């Protein structure tokens, strides 16, 4: 099928097998490999992207069904050589990762967690970040990063 995807403000025309997930289209066709494939079954959150500002799982989204939406991936948060998004900066400063594989999904999810208004306490952050697993168990630092980034995002 011929489809159009709007990713990080750029429109792409591509032809895909109808079974192609948004995750595979991003990684294999558009070479946006920042979005990670963990379980590919909706259980780990590594593939979290924003669609029209809402966080969703790219592994459970068909590329053909993602047309007409504004998709934001980790690559779209900071421009080339531009300053990092406050959430990216906070993850760096808090050392909120070890291996880093889940980090793009964590950061996208964390941004949505703040914009949804679900980062008002550590307990709330933990609850609303439960869809993003970290096998290195950097959870305490992820919570700290979100706590740090929240006021910076709100005054942005």
């Amino acid at each position, binding site marked *: 099928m011929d489809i159009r995807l709007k990713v990080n403000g750029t429109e792409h025309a591509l032809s895909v097998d109808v079974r192609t997930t948004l995750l595979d289209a991003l990684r294999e066709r558009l070479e946006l490999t920042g979005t990670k494939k963990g379980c590919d079954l909706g259980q780990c959150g590594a593939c979290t992207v924003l669609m029209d500002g809402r966080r969703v799982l790219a592994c459970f989204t068909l590329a053909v*069904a993602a047309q007409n939406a504004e998709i934001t991936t980790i690559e779209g948060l900071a421009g080339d050589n531009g300053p990092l998004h406050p959430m990216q900066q906070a993850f760096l400063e808090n050392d909120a990762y070890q291996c880093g594989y889940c980090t793009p999904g964590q950061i996208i999810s964390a941004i949505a967690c703040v914009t949804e208004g679900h980062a008002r306490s550590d307990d709330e952050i933990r609850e609303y970040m439960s869809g993003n697993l970290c096998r290195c168990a950097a959870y305490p630092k992820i919570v700290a990063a979100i706590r740090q980034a929240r006021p910076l995002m709100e005054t942005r």
Partner: protein
Amino acid sequence: MRPFAYERAGGAEAALAASTRHAVQEGPPPQYLAGGTNLLDLMKIGVMHPPALINIGALRGAHGGIQADAAGLRLGALAHMAEAAEHPAILSDYPAIAQSLQLAANQQLRNMATLAGNVLQRTRCNYFRDPSWDACNKRRPGSGCAAKDGVNRLLAVLGVSEACIASYPGDFANALAAFGAEVGLAGPDGSTRRIPFEDLHSLPGDTPHIETNLLPGELITDFHVPAGPWTRRSLYLKVRDRASFAFALASAVVALDLEGGAVRDARIGLGGLVAKPWRSREAEDALRGRRLDETTAQEAAEAAFAGAVTHGENAFKPELGRRTLVQALLQAAEMEA
């Protein structure tokens, strides 16, 4: 994933027509694609292989709203779980429904999944989900049930049959069942009908592969929850293996209409250990007209689980279920409503 035809429907009529057009004589039926969080999951692991997916995302405009008025709560089939979980009227007047959604899945999944898709989600029984197991009467009718002697601590103890002990995994649907909701349906022949939500799902019996009473191609349009003096004093208590993003081992929906400490009326549902979304009229009857205390709560819980049937690993579930219900009842009695 096996290949499938794909079509995006512009409206309900087009979706229903597409469902008929893509139906095949032998083999599984076409599927409507909304959130896709359970459908694509099951297609990827080789459990479902529909000949066609009909994308009904465009129906959100007509069938995605949420309205509350004096008669009750109307929930569009395509409203997302996350929207309903935070709707002000649901939070204030139907807290059990809001909690059943907040405590389900995670925020990414709740952003994607629709209410109708959520109630139609399939069991998480391992033997159903893994086609390398031959014996699953739900997946391969007549093949047997590997779960009865297998890993089954997540599976059901109420409503089960010799053929199947799969549990209905959802949370929200148990609240709809308890509150006596009604579901609106549209059929490919242009007809519409409304049925009690409790009649949407069927018990496994000898035919566990038949999970609902939906007709071929029928589409859920909305749910209606009738207003009642019990809806404000209501809660959903979910017990699970980890604090978030896990299916229930046991859960309880409790809604109480109290007068001076006595139960004028109650609505009670159970989850995590039931074969289908569950309302316990036995527990409601045990409480009606009586003072609610630990003794009567325990009696209601005994009544609710009188018919429990356990298998191996899940022998602990009737007791867990009783304790969950007792705690939910006592908590609801303490609510300010």
